[in-house]
């Protein structure tokens, strides 16, 4: 075992998908099936390697393991430095699980539209669009599109004639490299590089393979993230300048840890804000969330899973890894305000989710609420809250990922994203309805499923410091039950009514689709019953973070 731990594991994990991406990209066009197979195999190899890495990780060992550091740009004091603490490790594991799932679920998503239609039994898209506008009139509800700026473009837009299949899968693998890199980096500069570079593949995934308003959504996604990222760049440089004033300028995380003692509170708050806004946009916290419903709704399903499941976690991960330990004083001062934003996000996201007619927008809004919970757990400054938040990140990736996938399976059949177009689907597609229900229940944190544990921990951890916030957030739990169950009831139960192009038959989930979604559901149940291995890995890292911040858990009394 000992010689195994010496290998540069994190670099290997990052390189494998990169090589895979290049391989897929240089395949001759026309060999689409081969490209997909290569992508799947590569992502499975990454998964296998990740499992090995997780096995090698010692929960009680050093804070950062698999550490590597090489000079990259000495002129700026930049190192190629990677290492994984418990938090980063579980998130990398989440990536490794989600990518093969996404590859499998997106098998036909990049194919030319004509083929996809043929695959589902067809009459035409225009018929579906006509049907949707007719049926949407039946459901009253002007509140539904509170922030949808415009009606969807004409359906002709929905049929890009020729799209490169291999590029899609190459982009997915490239994205995996960047995502692993962003969590593995222990050099702030390196983190920033991945943080920004990660946008580009996602930008193309949304923009080239998304829905009717894809270019609008891609642009909005890019600009919001870039804007936040550039503010963070200013803060990163600021951090470097402060460290340079103490001697050699550096970006190494562990050397930056004690730096806040040299900063005035004003400087600390300014630098904190730079990081915080970038992460809050990424996460997204209310009021920085408005890009997510567009991006989530227009992205292809696989892209949406990775976007909400992993990319957004970089924001909450950033809070925990960078905002809190590097700027403890500022975090203490601003923490209560952040908690307030999180509570607003929880309630606002839930209310808006209830009002959505578009399935993918609905799922996106549920994420806004969930990210409120994660943020709250982090800024509550309790071990329970933060452990819960990290666990929440993983569980949210699984449950929202599953929900997006199932919604995607429904949409690819009906060619409509609108809830009013579907009714009684459970009658014709019981497996689809069943997985939909399970994913939904996980999203509303039903006890017995993994999400319950994390939500409970977050609420518990928050209550000991901010009881009012915890009580208000608990309302969000009830609202979650409402939006999930209403969505299920409207689409899956009741009399059968399907988009016109389907007639009265809808094919149930195929084997490929079941294989894609089953691992996520299984993990949700297993982790719901037995979360200990995960918590064992997370807890030491969270405790280390709490130590960096210099805070201890409040005594368990009600009037603390």
């Amino acid at each position, binding site marked *: 075992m000992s010689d195994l731990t010496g290998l540069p594991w994190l670099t290997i994990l990052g390189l494998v998908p990169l090589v895979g991406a290049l391989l897929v990209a240089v395949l001759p066009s026309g060999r689409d099936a081969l490209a997909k197979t290569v992508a799947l195999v590569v992502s499975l190899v990454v998964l296998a390697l990740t499992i090995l890495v997780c096995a090698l990780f010692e929960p009680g060992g050093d804070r950062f393991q698999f550490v590597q550091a090489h000079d*990259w*740009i*000495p*002129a*700026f004091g930049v190192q190629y430095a990677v290492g994984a603490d418990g938090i980063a490790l579980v998130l990398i594991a989440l990536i490794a699980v989600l990518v093969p799932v996404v590859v499998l679920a997106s098998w036909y998503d990049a194919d030319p539209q004509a083929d996809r239609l043929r695959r589902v039994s067809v009459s035409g898209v225009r018929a579906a669009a006509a049907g949707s506008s007719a049926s949407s009139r039946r459901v009253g509800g002007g509140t539904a599109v509170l922030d949808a700026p415009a009606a969807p473009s004409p359906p002709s837009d929905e049929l*890009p*004639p*020729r799209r*490169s299949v291999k590029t899609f899968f190459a982009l997915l693998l490239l994205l995996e490299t960047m995502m692993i890199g962003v969590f593995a980096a222990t050099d702030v500069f390196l983190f*920033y*590089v*991945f943080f*920004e*570079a990660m*946008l*580009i593949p996602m*930008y*193309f995934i949304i*923009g*080239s393979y998304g829905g009717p308003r*894809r*270019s609008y959504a*891609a*642009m909005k996604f*890019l*600009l919001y993230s*870039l*804007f936040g990222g*550039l*503010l963070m*760049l*200013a803060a990163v*440089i*600021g951090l*470097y*300048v402060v460290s*340079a004033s103490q001697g050699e300028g550096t970006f190494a995380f562990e050397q930056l840890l004690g730096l806040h003692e040299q900063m005035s509170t004003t400087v600390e708050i300014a630098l904190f804000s730079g990081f915080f806004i970038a992460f809050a946009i990424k996460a997204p916290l209310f009021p920085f969330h408005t890009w997510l419903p567009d991006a989530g709704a227009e992205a292809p399903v696989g892209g949406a899973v990775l976007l909400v499941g992993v990319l957004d976690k970089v924001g909450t991960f950033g809070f925990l890894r960078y905002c809190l330990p590097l700027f403890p004083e500022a975090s203490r001062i601003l923490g209560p305000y952040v908690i307030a934003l999180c509570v607003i996000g929880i309630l606002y996201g839930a209310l808006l989710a209830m009002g959505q007619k578009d399935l993918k927008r609905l799922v996106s809004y549920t994420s806004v609420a969930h990210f409120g919970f994660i943020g709250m757990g982090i800024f509550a400054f309790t071990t329970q809250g933060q452990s819960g938040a990290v666990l929440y990140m993983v569980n949210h990736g699984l449950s929202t990922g599953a929900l997006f996938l199932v919604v995607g399976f429904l949409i690819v059949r009906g060619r409509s994203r609108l809830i009013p177009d579907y009714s009684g689907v459970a009658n014709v597609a019981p497996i689809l309805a069943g997985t939909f229900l399970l994913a939904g229940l996980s999203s509303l944190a039903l006890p017995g499923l993994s999400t319950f544990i994390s939500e409970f921990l977050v609420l518990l951890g928050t209550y000991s410091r901010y009881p009012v916030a915890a009580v208000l957030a608990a309302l969000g739990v009830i609202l979650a039950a409402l939006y999930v169950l209403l969505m299920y009831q409207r689409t899956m139960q009741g009399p059968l009514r399907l988009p016109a192009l389907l007639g009265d038959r809808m094919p149930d989930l195929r084997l490929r689709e079941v294989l894609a979604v089953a691992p996520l559901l299984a993990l949700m149940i297993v982790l719901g019953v037995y979360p200990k291995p995960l918590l064992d890995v997370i807890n030491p890292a969270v405790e280390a973070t709490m130590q960096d911040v210099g805070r201890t858990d409040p005594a368990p009394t009600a009037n603390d």
Partner: protein
Amino acid sequence: MPTDIPSPELAYAPIAPLLIVFAAALVGVLVEAFAPRAARRTLQIAVSLVGLVAALVTTVLLAGTEELVFNDAIAVDGPTLFLQGTLAVLGIASVLLLSERSLDASGGAVVARAAVLPGSREDVELAEATEVQTEVYPLALFSLGGMMLFPASNNLLLMFVALEVLSLPLYLMAGLARRRRLLSQEAAVKYFLLGAFASAFFLYGVALVYGYAGSVDLGEVAAATGTAGSNDGLLFLGLAMLAVGLLFKVGAVPFQAWTPDVYQGSPTPVTALMAACTKISAFGALLRVLYVGFGRAEWDWSPMFWAVAILTMVVGGVLAITQTDVKRMLAYSSVAHTGFLLVGVIALSPQGLSGTLFYLFAYGFTTIAAFAVVTLVRDSSGEATHLAQWAGLGRKSPLVAATFAFLLFALAGIPLTSGFMAKFAVFTAGLEGGATALVVVGVVMSAVTAFFYARVVVLMFFSEPAADGPTVAVPSAYTAAAIALGLAVTVVLGVLPQPVLDLADRASRFVS
């Protein structure tokens, strides 16, 4: 005052790069006069390339030199050699672009008879003809020679001469576009008129500074600013007027008005030369004037430069959003980049100097490749520069579109491109120099500039191609080589910038 004029000590070796480029230009004139028409083009290309390569080699050989020659008029030091080397390489790329003949059916981007009245019968005939003239090569070489002299001048009068030597050929070359003659002539006239004004300001500034310091030598100007004088009015006015001349050349607001028209009207290879090389050269001169001559008067000029830098970033970034022509958009983007560069200049520190040098190097290569790509997208009337015509380019020729997208991302400063490293370098220097507000404006405007770059990417990749859209011409080896060079530097500097950072770092010392 000594009555006898001291004869200058002539040291030719340190200025060998300059001598070689000017000699090549003169040879070019002779070729134009005496060589048979059929052989001219080949000869001109050969002379230009050989001259520039030799200049590059000599700058490399001179590396490490730090001396003032010709009675302190020329400073051969780190910044000079770094910029001269950069200019030589970019000059080679520009000459390659000028040599391209397979894109335009009638051969080359440059018109044969520039003086013909646009719209006249002769002009119509000219548009059909396949005549090719080659006087553009010596013109480019003279201009490049001037550009290499400009940042090396340690004497304001010599700097003025260099300014004229680099500008006059450019005024002419701006009017040489083969297509859209009227636009090109307009560009030439505008550039000439405004440039002449700017030169006049510069010259007046030189006079006033002479009045203040009693010398046009930058070293003596520096000495004079160190002593408390009563003639501060002369100093302020003189410096302001020098700044007008220099800021005009770098395209800073409020002296940017010429950039979009001139960039759009000039033949694209010339635009590339202007955008990359003129900016580098003028920034070199600006750096020398501020760092060597007026370093001690920092508090007198830095508020003005703060205002100019902020204005330049904001105006360049915002106006670029409204552009519908790709060359005009790149022009405004170059204005915004001038603003980012000024952040490094204002830092007035070795880090600021090396950061600015690195930025100029990175920016030059990216820009030249970007304009080279613009020459490839054509329709029946020449280059198709309207942005709407670029819709769906990613479908029609993914390679060209991907190249352009990458260059745009580099200009936007996305990590893993040279643009990001460059921005990082100047912003770090700015923040270390205490210019927090400038850096914040810089990052916010970077986000704004990202918008219009990304918009082009949206057009190319996410939009449907128009039915009668332009075609992407297959370039000859000349243009392909220029694009490959620019692209390679943009990639390499994005991943492994250390060698060039080291180079810029070692070069970041002015001799005085």
